C-alpha cells in the first residue's frame, strides 16, 4: 500500500555549529564549512527540497557568516534565536505552509533532536554525522525532478517578498490582491505536464478534494480520454511565477460534469484560485447542458476544500457508505473576481 511508503521531505532544517560548519561561531570566531556540505545543499536545492535553519546563535553574526560563505540565499525563513528548536520548526512550518511530517532537522546535538521530536513527533531528525548520506535516503529522493521543483526555492523567495508587500500594504486584502496583477492560465494537461501533475497529487494535502492519488500510467491515459476534462492551472503575478499550481479532473457523465479531483498548491491558498477554477467549471457544465457535481472525501486535513465548495454554492446531495459525499452546484453562472485575469488555452 501507498501508506507504507515514507512521506517525502519538503524542507530540511539545518543546525549551524558543528553541523553546517565545524566549531562554535561565538566561541571560535572562525569556522569552516563541513567537507562537501555545499554540494549536499546544492543537490537538495536542485531536487526542489527547501532548506532552512534552526540554530541557537547570534542572528547577525550567523547571517554574516552565511553571507561570507555565499550560502545565505539557500535558506528560507532562517530561525536563529536563543529559543527552543521546536518553536523554530513550528515557525518554519507556518511560514512555508507545509506540514510537520514533511520537515526534517539535521543537528549534531542529540538533546536538540529529542526536544524537537518530543514536541513534534512527526518531524524526522538526523544526526549531523550523516550529512553526506542524506542524499541517498528515499525520503530525500522525489520521484521526478520537475521544472517546478528546480524553481521551488525562487518561488518561495518571491512569496517572501509578496508577504512583506502585503504587510506593508495599508488597505483591504482585496485591494492588495488587485495590486498583484495576477494572471491565471488554465490549459489541458499535456504529456509534458504529467510529472508535475503526479507531484501535485502527492504533495497536496490540505487543498485536495479527495486525496486520491493517481499513478503515472493512469494520468497518462486520462490525457487522451474524451470522457474526461483534465486541466492544469498556472499562476503568475508582478513578483513572478507561482508555477503550475492547480489541477482539475472531471468526468463527462450523462447528466453531469463530475469533478473527481480538484487541488491547489498551498502557496495559493489565499488567492481564490479554487473559486476561479470552479467558476470556469460552472460555465463549462452550463455549455454542455449538464449539472456540475463533485466528489468530496474527508481526509482529516482537507476541511478547507469542503468549505470552499459549500460557500461557492454547492450542496450535499448524496452520502456514500465509505463516508464520501457527492456535492452538486445549485446556483447560476458566476463571474471571475476582478483582481484575477483568467485565460483559457484551447480546451
Amino acid at each position, binding site marked *: 500500500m501507498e501508506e507504507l511508503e515514507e512521506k517525502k521531505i519538503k524542507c530540511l532544517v539545518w543546525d549551524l555549529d558543528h553541523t553546517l560548519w565545524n566549531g562554535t561561531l561565538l566561541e571560535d570566531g572562525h569556522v569552516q564549512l563541513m567537507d562537501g556540505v555545499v554540494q549536499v545543499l546544492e543537490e537538495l536545492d536542485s531536487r526542489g527540497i527547501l532548506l532552512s535553519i534552526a540554530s541557537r546563535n547570534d542572528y547577525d553574526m550567523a547571517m554574516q557568516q552565511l553571507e561570507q560563505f555565499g550560502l545565505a540565499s539557500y535558506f528560507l525563513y532562517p530561525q536563529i534565536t536563543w529559543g527552543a528548536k521546536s518553536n523554530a520548526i513550528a515557525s518554519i512550518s507556518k511560514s512555508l505552509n507545509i506540514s510537520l511530517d514533511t520537515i526534517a532537522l539535521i543537528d549534531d546535538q542529540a538533546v536538540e533532536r529529542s526536544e524537537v521530536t518530543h514536541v513534534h513527533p512527526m518531524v524526522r531528525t538526523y544526526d549531523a554525522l550523516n550529512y553526506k548520506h542524506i542524499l541517498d535516503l528515499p525520503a530525500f529522493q522525489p520521484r521526478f525532478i520537475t521544472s517546478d521543483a528546480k524553481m521551488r526555492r525562487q518561488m518561495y523567495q518571491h512569496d517572501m517578498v509578496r508577504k512583506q508587500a502585503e504587510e506593508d500594504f495599508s488597505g483591504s486584502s482585496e485591494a492588495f490582491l488587485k495590486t498583484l496583477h495576477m494572471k491565471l492560465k488554465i490549459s489541458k494537461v499535456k504529456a509534458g505536464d504529467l510529472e508535475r501533475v503526479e507531484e501535485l497529487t502527492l504533495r497536496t494535502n490540505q487543498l485536495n478534494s479527495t486525496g486520491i492519488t493517481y499513478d503515472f500510467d493512469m494520468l497518462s491515459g486520462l490525457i487522451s480520454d474524451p470522457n474526461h476534462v483534465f486541466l492544469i492551472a498556472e499562476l503568475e503575478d508582478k513578483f513572478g511565477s507561482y508555477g503550475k499550481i492547480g489541477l482539475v479532473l472531471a468526468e463527462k457523465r450523462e447528466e453531469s460534469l463530475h469533478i473527481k479531483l480538484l487541488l491547489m498548491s498551498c502557496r495559493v*491558498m489565499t488567492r481564490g484560485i479554487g473559486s476561479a477554477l470552479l467558476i470556469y467549471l460552472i460555465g463549462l457544465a452550463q455549455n454542455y447542458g449538464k449539472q456540475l457535481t463533485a466528489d468530496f472525501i474527508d481526509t482529516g486535513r482537507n*476541511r*478547507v476544500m469542503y468549505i470552499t465548495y459549500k*460557500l461557492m454554492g454547492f450542496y450535499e446531495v448524496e452520502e456514500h457508505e465509505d463516508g464520501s459525499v457527492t456535492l452538486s452546484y445549485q446556483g447560476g453562472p458566476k*463571474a*471571475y*473576481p476582478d483582481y484575477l485575469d483568467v485565460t483559457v488555452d484551447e480546451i
Partner: protein
Amino acid sequence: MNYQEKIMEFFVQKGRAEGLTFDTDLFAGGFVDSLFALEIVIYLENTFGLRIKNSEIREENFKTIHAMAALVERLKK
C-alpha cells in the same frame, strides 16, 4: 457585545472591515478565499464554543455577518 459585533471583530482583525456592514454580501465578488473561509468557520467555532456541522456550512449561513450571527444563535440553543 452581541454576536454580530463579535463576528465583526474578526473582520477588523483581518483588515477586511472597511465599508463592511452586518448586511454586506461577503460573496458578492463571486469568490471564496479558501483560507479565509476556513478561518471564519474556525473563529465561530472557537469564539462561541460550537461545532459547526457540515450540513450547516452553506452559502446562505455565511453570506453576511447577520446570517452568521443567526447561525450562532441557532446553534447556541
